[in-house]
């Protein structure tokens, strides 16, 4: 039996400060184990969707509902959503000077374990876990000692995001442009990492412009997202078609 993980119903949301509406009547259901890809033209508000789902304070929900594993997401703080199992691989991971990567990761893991009433990992347990995971992403122990994202190349940042995915073991991973700025080797590392984590219990929402990542991860559903809602749903064939003919036909049809 399929199990609903995320259910978005008639969602309206916008920028908190200006009141500008960006998401306008979005519907999307993601069941456990499914992979969904959201594609769409620049400026359609794809990243906004990822921020609204994860509770970034710059955005405000003005209508509709978001439910995740029996929780009303709108009532939860960003860290609570994270601890319940929503992970966002960010398009541009921010630098945090002074905080080493491994110290950051230890805080993150233990904060989530604490929220879920699991015992916190001590330094030795954590380092063992971290080192074995880091190998898969070609991340050296030297890199783990550097300040998080500070002076990291684009590829290093993205690899670190996926390392976090594999450490935090979320139920739903949102990959926002996880493939941008990656060379072929790095893309392979990222997609292998995602595929390794991906099981029948957990789900993926991939936001992208490119087919490269989708060809490696193979989505069950491909959605075209424009003007704040999904205007067309298909499978990988739809993505392939977009690659050749672009969004224009669908955008015109939606008008």
């Amino acid at each position: 039996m399929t199990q609903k993980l995320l259910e978005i119903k008639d969602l309206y949301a916008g920028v908190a400060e200006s009141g500008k509406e960006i998401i306008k009547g979005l519907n999307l259901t993601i069941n456990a184990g499914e992979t969904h890809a959201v594609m769409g033209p620049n400026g359609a508000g794809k990243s906004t969707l990822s921020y609204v789902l994860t509770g970034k304070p710059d955005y405000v929900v003005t209508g509709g509902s978001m439910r995740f594993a029996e929780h009303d997401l709108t009532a939860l703080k960003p860290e609570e959503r994270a601890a319940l199992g929503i992970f966002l691989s960010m398009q541009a991971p921010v630098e945090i000077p002074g905080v080493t990567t491994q110290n950051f990761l230890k805080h993150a893991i233990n904060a989530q374990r604490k929220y879920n009433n699991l015992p916190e990992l001590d330094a030795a347990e954590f380092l063992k876990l971290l080192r074995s995971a880091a190998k898969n992403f070609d991340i050296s122990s030297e890199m783990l000692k550097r300040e998080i994202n500070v002076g990291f190349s684009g590829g290093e940042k993205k690899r670190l995001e996926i390392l976090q995915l594999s450490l935090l073991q979320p139920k739903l991973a949102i990959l926002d442009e996880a493939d941008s700025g990656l060379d072929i080797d790095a893309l392979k590392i990222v997609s292998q990492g995602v595929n390794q984590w991906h099981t029948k219990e957990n789900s993926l929402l991939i936001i992208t412009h490119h087919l490269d990542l989708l060809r490696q991860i193979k989505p069950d559903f491909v959605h075209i997202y424009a003007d704040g809602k999904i205007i067309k749903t298909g499978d990988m064939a739809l993505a392939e078609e977009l690659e050749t003919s672009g969004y224009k036909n669908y955008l015109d049809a939606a008008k």
Partner: protein
Amino acid sequence: MTDKPQIEDLSGDKYKYGFTTEIEADTAPCGLNEDIIRLISAKKNEPEWLLERRLKAYRHWLTMSEPHWAKLKYDAVDFQALSYYAAPKQKAKPKSLEDVDKTLLDTYNKLGIPLKEQEALSGVVAVDAVFDSVSVATTYRAKLAQSGIIFCSISEAVKEHPELVQKYLGSVVPYTDNFYACLNSAVFTDGSFVYIPKGVKAPMELSTYFRINAQNTGQFERTLIVAEDDSYVSYLEGCTAPQRDENQLHAAIVEIVVMNNAEVKYSTVQNWYPGDKDGKGGVYNFVTKRAACRGINSKVSWTQVETGSAVTWKYPSCILQGDNSVGEFYSVAITNNRQQADTGTKMIHLGKNTRSKIISKGISAGFSNQTYRGLVDIAANAKNARNYSQCDSLLIGSTCGSHTVPYIRNRSKSAVLEHEATTSKISAEQLFYCQQRGIKEEEAVGLIVNGFCKEVMQKLPMEFAIEAGKLINISLEGSVG
């Protein structure tokens, strides 16, 4: 000597609840005049020479006026409304921890302070009952004495080692130095004396057990540390556990003398009562700290983590007199709510090849205001002197202020000076990134701030650093959202 009968008159008659009784009223009447100073000196059974010094300082103090150049705003101190001598207070004690202010207990728990210690800190039981402080002190002292180290209160030193005290007291900070130092020289009550003889390395951090014992050192603390040739000592001041302190004004002096090839490390964690959210109450902290590197190759480093006090005015300094001497200043200052701090250092280069390093990290939150004020002064003879200064400010929120005022005076052509300064803000993006990984906003701020201060925190002795880290988190509570 002719004044003596007068003292007796005062203590015996007018102040009949005064110095003759042991508990309740072991406190001088409010106000400051020569008689009060005689009283303090008599109460402490001081020798004539010290009383004379006190009186000289007092007479000079009368000619001075309070400095107003710091970027601080506070109600003027009424020096005649203060009492200048108070023995440990024996007010109505709480009967058990249940009677103690809950916020205080919360803080102790967050710092991980053992229950027994909590009881002592909050005044439920006497310190002696927990630690048997007398015997602890004696054990330490016996061990230190084996290597010739003197570690005692300044009052004891005056009696037992008058030649040392006479030689060094006031030799680094003369009573004429500044308004508050002058006041301290007239009325200081107690403090610590440390003497490390030639060739001796202190076998332990001094004053680690002071957390409790330092509870009632009083408003006008006086510390003197002398490190003879080839010696070493690391000295820790202060306590990491917050204590309710009723004293409004603190004006301390710390003097350090460092001879040839000797090294002194002086670490401070200061967390006196900062006042409430609206800036009511809190300690005024006007401190003069100075080290004289008199010998060649001598070295002194000041490390401080300051989270307390409503008003801070403090510039731990190094006089680099001996050739090749080194001065270091590592500082973390955190201000929140309505706290104000004007703090920094002075590096005075006199000898050849003298080097100094300044790392200052200021964190401002709430409606607080903070100024880094530093002086690097290089004399004409200080050939090849070097200074490196780094002043970083971190702002939390948009209602606080941070200011950097570095003074540089260089008269040596061969000197090399470097100065770096940054100001940054904890961004919403950084907080969201942390939260998205499951870290709560307040924990994220603590993580970022601790990262920002890391360079300084690493200079603190281990156990001290851990508690200081927790203290930073506590002092920033409520600074976001």
